């Protein structure tokens, strides 16, 4: 609020941009309410429906892009919280435990904190480059999300060159890091930026070559197709056909994401914070978010390429059918008629009261209100569970999303685990490892895979 009471001239650049936007948003909201109330907007929507139908790919792209841009922030929040909590566990500390239950809102508060901090531009920096660098890094991370298949049908754009797009756009982040390092007018930043350039470029090679085996087996570069090819049980996953490829890809991915033990670009005990030394406020926040989004994306890519993407490890449907547990998902709400209205009106009240009753009876020291609140919360949880179950049974996208997220977070956990356990490698060891070990291993993997593919084709 202090921004509102401050004279215009005292605001920072960000403040000057954000303040009119806030006014604009309020005005638009009021207009929207007015439009709905007067019936103008429903009419427009009816008209627009035909317009959308005519331009489906563009609309689809816009929706996907906005959804992906929006999902990065909560994803980063979750991973940051996870990292704080898991590293605390490894360190035998408590970790965040003050804000929200078990400190779960800690990273949200961190997000607000970086927003509220002064966006500081030091003397002597190259201002346009300095300002653009975090955006480049962030966007290069976010844009790769567009081709990641989360679930059947839930993919931003199903490109036939998805993997190529991924590496092409993902490789752009080194430009951002170099921009940050160069423009910061700080020797630590410069060293950090140059380290980033050397490291990311060196590890691009094993990263890409490690995947070529998968591309050869799959015969396509579309990530969606690669996942579809791994359908079935977990034995169909590519990790069992490409163990060496997976190992190379995983190590290179850790280096590509600038994560420990390869976090040389922001080695805090050596070069303070590397390329991010001079950044503060939301600009630093962009780097920070980009790092965690990159962790998510790389874990997601490992899942997609080697661990079957959204496919369940075992197909449970035959098992359920054998046990006679077939579920009828064709529930028609229309058949309930007036009963539906009664259900909607009375269900919450009766449910809440029923759930509150045992608490009120068993805990004499609790007030009625407290029991009611508990009952209401429990009722909501139950309903959410029921709805989730229903969705999971009726739409395979929900099950797919569940498996994708679950597998991805296993790898996110491995990233965090490594950060808590391992010391940092040195720059010469890092480069030597990439060029002397990973690259020859990737080439060997490529050669063996090619040989196997040809042999199998010849036998057939």
């Amino acid at each position, binding site marked *: 609020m202090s921004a509102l009471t401050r004279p215009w001239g005292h605001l920072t650049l960000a403040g000057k941009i954000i303040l009119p936007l806030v006014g604009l948003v309020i005005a638009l909201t009021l207009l929207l309410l007015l439009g709905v109330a007067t019936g103008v907007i429903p009419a427009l929507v009816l008209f627009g429906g035909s317009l959308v139908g005519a331009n489906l790919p563009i609309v689809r792209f816009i929706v996907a892009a906005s959804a992906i841009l929006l999902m990065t922030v909560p994803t980063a929040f979750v991973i940051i919280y996870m990292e704080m909590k898991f*590293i605390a566990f*490894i*360190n*035998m*500390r408590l970790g965040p435990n003050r804000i929200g239950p078990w400190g779960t809102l800690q990273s949200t508060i961190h997000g607000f904190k970086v927003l509220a901090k002064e966006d500081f531009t030091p*003397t*002597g920096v190259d201002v346009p480059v300095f300002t653009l660098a975090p955006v480049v890094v962030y966007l290069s991370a976010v844009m790769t999300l567009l081709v990641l298949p989360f679930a059947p049908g839930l993919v931003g754009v199903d490109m036939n060159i998805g993997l190529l797009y991924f590496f092409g756009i993902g490789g752009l982040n080194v430009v951002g890091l170099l921009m940050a390092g160069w423009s910061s007018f700080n*020797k*630590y930043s410069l*060293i950090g930026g140059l*380290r980033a350039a050397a490291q990311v470029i060196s590890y691009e090679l094993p990263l890409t070559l490690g995947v070529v085996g998968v591309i050869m087996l799959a015969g396509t570069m579309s990530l969606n197709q690669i996942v579809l090819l791994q359908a079935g049980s977990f034995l169909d996953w590519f990790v069992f056909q490409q163990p060496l490829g997976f190992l190379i890809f995983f190590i290179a991915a850790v280096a590509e994401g600038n994560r*420990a*033990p390869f*976090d*040389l670009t922001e*080695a*805090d*005990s*050596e*070069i*303070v914070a590397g390329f991010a030394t001079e950044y503060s406020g939301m600009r630093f926040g962009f780097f920070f978010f980009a790092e965690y989004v990159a962790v998510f994306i790389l874990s997601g890519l490992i899942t997609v390429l080697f661990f079957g993407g959204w496919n369940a490890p075992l197909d449970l449907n035959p098992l359920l059918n054998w046990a006679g547990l077939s579920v009828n998902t064709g529930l028609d709400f229309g058949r309930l008629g007036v009963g539906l209205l009664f259900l909607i009106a009375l269900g919450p009240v009766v449910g809440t009261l029923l759930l509150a009753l045992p608490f009120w009876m068993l805990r004499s020291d609790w007030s009625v209100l407290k029991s009611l609140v508990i009952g209401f919360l429990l009722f909501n949880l139950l309903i959410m569970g029921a709805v989730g179950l229903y969705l999971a049974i009726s739409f395979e996208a929900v099950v797919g999303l569940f498996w994708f997220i679950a597998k991805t977070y296993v790898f996110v956990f491995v990233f965090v685990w490594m*950060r*808590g*356990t*391992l*010391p*940092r*490698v*040195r*720059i*010469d*060891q890092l480069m030597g490892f990439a060029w002397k070990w990973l690259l020859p291993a990737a080439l060997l993997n490529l050669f063996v895979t090619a040989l196997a593919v040809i042999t199998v084709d010849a036998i057939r």
Partner: protein
Amino acid sequence: MTADATRIRSLDDPTLFVDTPATIYDAVPPYPPRSEREAEFYHLRDGELLINLGPQHPSTHGVLRVVLKIDGERVVDLDPVLGYLHRGVEKICENGDWHHAISNCDPLEYVASMFSEAMPVLACEKLLDLEVPRRAEYIRVLAWELNRIASHALFVGWLALDLGGLTPILYSFIERDEIVEMLAALTGQRLLFNYLRIGGVNGDLNHEFMSRLGDWMSHAAEQLDNNQKLLNENEIFVRRTKGLGTLDRETALRLCMTGPPLRATGIPYDVRRAHPYSVYPELEFRIPTREEGDSYARYQLHLDEARESIHIIDQVLHQMPDGPVMAQIPRLIRPRPGRAWIAIESPRGQYGCFAISDGSDQPFRLRIRDPSYFNLQAVGVLTPGNLIADTMAIMASLDPIMGGIDK
């Protein structure tokens, strides 16, 4: 220099918040070189870059500033700049009486302050020819050895932290915290104990201390082994420390090094054995040495020494005599005029004190010889030719404490 030039600018000063225009700051200091070495250091060849490591840097263990001359990632030369924590303890000691000197010397080695506060105490006792009660001597040795383990535990954590490992320092702090809590029960302080007194110690062993000590002794050795498992066989840690910053015996002696860095080169120089003080002649312990002289050897040596200290504590507890813990001394101490030199083995090497008394109640001169001050010089010899990241590994393995270095 006039008083006006050194005046702190007040907040009302209109020039205080005026933006300075962008300037390209010159790396070379704004005064003519004061020595041959400085002139040579600030003469940059093509492609060389000066970079300030500190005084505000995560891994300089305090407010040390090191000017690095780098060529790419490789360190060509370096110049440590001290004085950011200089308080003039020696001068302050000359202006207080002998008792004041104890608490003035306390914050010198703030990680193991039981050693630095012993300096004026032992020196004054030597000037007075004072016989300290045997129980007090045993309690001193107990406190010293406990503090040595606490300090060595932190060393391991710091070394790992400077190599980028986040976890070992927390494990170290668990061990250190048990000892520090124990000493807090004994002395009333967690960090700067102010426990030793001229003629004895400030209070006998109490119940809480003994029960905490008993608890800790029951799992100390096991805990030490557990904590180092994380690092000992860690490929990255071993590769980053082995063969790094290798010192040979001759160089170590010429650099006036003492303590673990010297013993890691194979010279068994330990003041406890070379020049016994207190009740160390009555105790049985080994002086661990290593032959390699590199960072890894120094790390291993610290662990060996911590184990020896546990062994010493065990003996001290068994041999602890009864009796008073303070000698009968006057409140105002006026040693006869004379000079006294004492040295003890601190976790970082030989802590020494040279005291001159002129017969008054104040020390005429109290010179403190800090081991990390002399050990830190080795950075200038060991680092050139290595990478920037190795500077931290070498510096951490020498275990400098800026409180003592800057006095």
